[in-house]
């Protein structure tokens, strides 16, 4: 059966082979003519590969990331990484490459089973001692991107959104987009103020210029990268008004054509010195849209032109990837729902506090109960309805808990009073503690009063003291 061998070669993957066998079986049953086989297009090869960038050090929330990698910080009871993974899984992806800081691979790969996800995680460690940028991370795992995929989904580990990735992928394909970026209106945190000392909100916002109707990206400038004037490229072909927006959040979810990504990350590329995907490579790709095509007629192109000239019956398949930059079109997918990047303490705080109401939206289908069955809540404890209580958490009698997030395996001793606070895993609150509007990541072993505080080191807590607007963290030791 010669047709079989050639087909299975072409479509690769085991799934394709399985399908082919199935198909042949059907064919035998129906006694179909042999020639049909050649005309069948097999669609089983994976078209999208996902990359989750989870090696970020969390520079804007160092108080929290000193003890735990950023991607594993809990949002309610789940680690942050579970959210993008779930997003990918919902879109039907079966595998994701997760770039993590070296040494965290094991913890990261455990996330999947902890959270009941089914997606296969291939963790790729990078050495974070050199402080690699997102582009460096991508270069590091470039060899893991399969040759036969069309698009690569790049997503940051700190994204919490209720967008349907399938919609974004459909948008990407429908527009024939080279690069699609997920954007959403920038919304201020609902729960303010965040614990800890007062901080200034982040400085200048990104500027995104899109064609107002089509959503085509015209210019992307990362916050702080612009001066007194912004120069828009001349878009001669269209008269569509351009929306110059500083109120759009770049969600750090990009769908990029593999060929373009490979070109940008290749050693000899113009981007070889770029460290950040968002601030450098993305603006570069967007700007390439409006540059004149460089006519480097390679042998492939010659062949293409010959084919199109003399053989009109040959239509290039959409899998046919031309190696030229000639037709880059970038789009912004404008999502109107929830889209938050958890990369600062205020956003982390806000998302944690809102998680009670958001959990159904951002993790549809993942039945993570708000009150875990294994949690032991004393019948004389008062726990408000809008609190989240994780697995194995023990809440003693005569406690009062309102609008709190208690992660798994916490212990709240009698007579403790907690309100509007977030407790990390394995946090013990000793009896008599009063905690208001605080983020507690270490056990409170002494009776104390906390207001608007962040606690990451229990040794800083002294008996009977009151703390306000403070970060109680381990002082770095200088040797």
């Amino acid at each position, binding site marked *: 059966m010669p047709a079989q061998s050639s087909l299975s070669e072409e479509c690769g993957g085991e799934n394709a082979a399985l399908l082919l066998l199935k198909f042949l079986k059907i064919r035998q049953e129906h006694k179909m003519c042999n020639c049909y086989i050649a005309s069948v297009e097999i669609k089983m090869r994976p078209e999208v590969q996902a990359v989750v960038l989870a090696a970020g050090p969390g520079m804007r929330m160092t108080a929290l990331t000193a003890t735990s990698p950023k991607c594993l910080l809990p949002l309610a009871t789940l680690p942050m990484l579970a959210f993008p993974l779930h997003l990918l899984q919902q879109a039907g992806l079966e595998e994701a490459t997760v770039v993590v800081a070296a040494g965290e691979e094991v913890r990261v790969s455990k996330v999947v089973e902890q959270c009941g996800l089914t997606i296969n995680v291939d963790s790729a460690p990078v050495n974070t001692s050199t402080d690699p940028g997102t582009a460096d991370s991508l270069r590091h795992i470039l060899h893991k991107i399969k040759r036969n995929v069309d698009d690569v989904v790049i997503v940051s580990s700190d994204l919490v959104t209720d967008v349907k990735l399938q919609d974004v992928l459909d948008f990407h394909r429908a527009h024939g987009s080279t690069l699609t970026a997920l954007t959403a209106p920038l919304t201020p945190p609902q729960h303010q103020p965040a614990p800890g000392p007062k901080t200034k909100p982040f400085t200048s916002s990104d*500027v995104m210029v899109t064609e107002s109707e089509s959503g085509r990206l015209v210019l992307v400038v990362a916050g702080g990268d612009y001066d007194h004037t912004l120069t828009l490229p001349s878009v001669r072909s269209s008269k569509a008004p351009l929306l110059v927006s500083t109120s759009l959040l770049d969600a750090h979810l990009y769908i990029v054509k593999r060929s373009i990504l490979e070109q940008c990350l290749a050693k000899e590329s113009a981007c070889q010195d770029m460290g950040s995907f968002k601030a450098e490579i993305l603006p570069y790709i967007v700007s390439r849209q409006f540059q004149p095509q460089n006519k480097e007629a390679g042998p492939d192109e010659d062949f293409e032109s010959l084919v199109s000239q003399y053989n009109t019956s040959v239509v290039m398949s959409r899998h046919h990837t031309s190696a030229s930059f000639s037709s880059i079109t970038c789009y912004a997918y404008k999502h109107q729902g929830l889209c938050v990047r958890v990369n600062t303490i205020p956003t982390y705080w806000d998302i944690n506090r809102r998680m009670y109401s958001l959990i159904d939206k951002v993790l549809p289908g993942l039945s993570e109960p708000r009150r875990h069955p294994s949690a032991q809540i004393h019948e004389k404890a008062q726990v408000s309805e809008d609190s989240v209580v994780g697995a194995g958490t023990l809440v003693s009698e005569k406690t009062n808990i309102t609008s709190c997030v208690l992660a798994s395996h916490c212990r709240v001793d009698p007579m403790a009073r907690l309100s509007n606070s977030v407790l990390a895993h394995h946090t013990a609150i000793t009896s008599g503690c009063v905690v208001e509007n605080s983020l507690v990541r270490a056990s409170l072993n002494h009776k104390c009063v906390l207001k608007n505080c962040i606690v990451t080191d229990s040794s800083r807590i002294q008996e009977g003291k009151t703390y306000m607007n403070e970060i109680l963290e381990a002082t770095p030791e200088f040797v």
Partner: protein
Amino acid sequence: MAPKVEVHEESSILQAVILTECDIDYGTAITHYNPKVLVPLANTPLLDYTLAWLERCGVDEVIVYCRTNTHTDKIKQHCKRFTSRREDCGIKVMVVVSEDCLNLGDAMRDLYSKSLLKDDFILLQGDLVATLDLQDIVAKHKENRLSDKSMIMTCVYVNKPTETTTTTAAMEGEEERGKEVTATLVTAADTGKLLLHRRTRSKSSKISIPTELFQASSDLLTYPAAYDPSLAICSEVVPSLFSDNFDYGSRDSLLRGVIEQEELLGYSIRCQVVQDGYACRASTLQQYQRVSGEVMRREAYPMVCESSLTSHRIRYTYDPFTTTYWEPSAKFTKGNGGTSEVVVGAGTEVVDAGTVIITCKLFQRGNGGTSEVVVGAGTEVDAGVLLTASVVGDHCTLSDGVRANAAFIMNNVHIKSGCKLDHCYIGDDVVLEEGVVVSSGCVVGPGVRLGPHVTIPPGTQLVSRPPSSTPDHHDDFDETTRVKEADPSICGVKGKAFILLPEETNQDDDDDDEESSDDDGRSSGQDDGDSEDALMMMSDDEHSENEFRREVQESLMNGMSKKSAAENMVLEINASRHAYNVSMEDVLTTVTQGILRAGQKQDGGTEPTWPGINTALKCFVDVLRNYVRKGRDQLLVLNAIEKLMVDSPEFLPATQKILFNLNQTFEILEGEVILHWYKKGGAGTTAFTTIKTSIAQFIEWLEKDSEDEEDSEDEEDSDEECS
């Protein structure tokens, strides 16, 4: 209750102001005979399009604003006819004439002083052809104005997603001109407030946006090139703003002023960018051609050629297959048939002619030609005539073999066989003999005769009378004024025509002016309309200089009578300098001349006398010294004195003494500098030769003095010698 309603209705009269002296003109060959707004476009005067549109949009009162000139009566009569011809005319047309209106700002100031504008009004140019929904635009304007009192004006722009500006061959030969009527806009996305307004200059200009605009609004909507039909809905604040600021000449300068001084004035401007409807100004001849084509292609529907805009009767037969319109009385004579060329008429019967047009035109479609043609009443078109994208007026004759592409032929034109017309304008009563070729961009003025067998080079403007008789022009027609007889090499043996020279010098000046003043209005270097602007600007400069001179003179006179201290005088002069923005050199010139003149006036007599001048010099020597700092300044003083002699030679006798005293007594001028200046021939004015003779004695002495510098000459002696 009832009277209250009436009052309300009274106050909500919707007014519109049509400016007939548009900022851009068609050139004297046309506008000398007919005002621009009455130039027919597809055989309907431009003004009718505007009036008909305004009437349909529920405008109650139209003010047609024009300047006093030969055309005023024509416009008045036309407006009268327009309203009287239909019984149910809903608009009141009022023609307002002003003596000295040079631009939109003047018109606004005049209307403000006449207090003719009561409420919100529509401001537009008379060459606009539009079908926009004005009622909707005005309603939005009023709504915005209710919510935001600081909003004083809504500018209307048209941004069509499909671009149709690709005119194949430009009428004027300058394709880029069309870009002048577009603007780059930056508006706040939520409110539509205009934050940045810039004329689109070059084709591929990148748009730069000041990032400080993000403070005003986080989302900006940018229109790279929105078409500007010069249409605005203004509140009653606008005319008052114009009359408060005399430097606001055009709408653009108002926009710039309001945007730049938002904090100071507290006003804002909004934009409405419309997608639907048609609006285009026939501002230049190139635009005229474009609008004409678009009207013929029914893009301005329901304003179509076949229905008269004044009486609404159907005047033309319309063939939708070929976009051809003809008046039933037009004759298309039978041709031989069988020619491969496309002919307009091949049947004696008009209806037949139509059918033949269809077949022929369909045939021509295959060649990629366009076919929009309008033929007016009583016109005779012979067989073998090829007309494309052209308009033929009433009572014309087109003989066999005439080919016209994008030609605009007015009334009573006779074109004999073999003529070729391309992208040109042919005025009333023109006769073209056999074999005349009119190249693209030509304007043939009314009454011109051409031919036989001449070729008119591209871009020529021809008039029937020698151009010197045209009043609008400046005296750079020396050559043509001398030739009173028409040149047969230009217009042919039977011809009678004179070339109207393009005013290149003026245009250049104008461009410079424009660059230096950074888009002063849209006075783009466009034919004639601008030379006026240029003149006006020049006189503006002169005016401020004169004012400065007058002020300095006044300060000096006052200072002399009051014996003011030199520092105070300098302070006063510097204040004037800043007020009129005069350069340091000009200040020195003015001060020098002013001092000398002060001496003359102080004396009381008209003849300047040395004692008077001497006292003035003594009085102001410190003032002068303050301005003379380096050697170059000394030369300026000398030049100033020389120039003074040009204007008032009565100072001549005193020159030697003035120079001597400035040199010896006051030590402001160095001997060497004077000698140098003398040898170089002074400032090179006509007065230098006379000065030369009058100061020869002093120069001789100076030379001697510099030669034997060692010998300390007695100053008393030399003083005597000189006097």
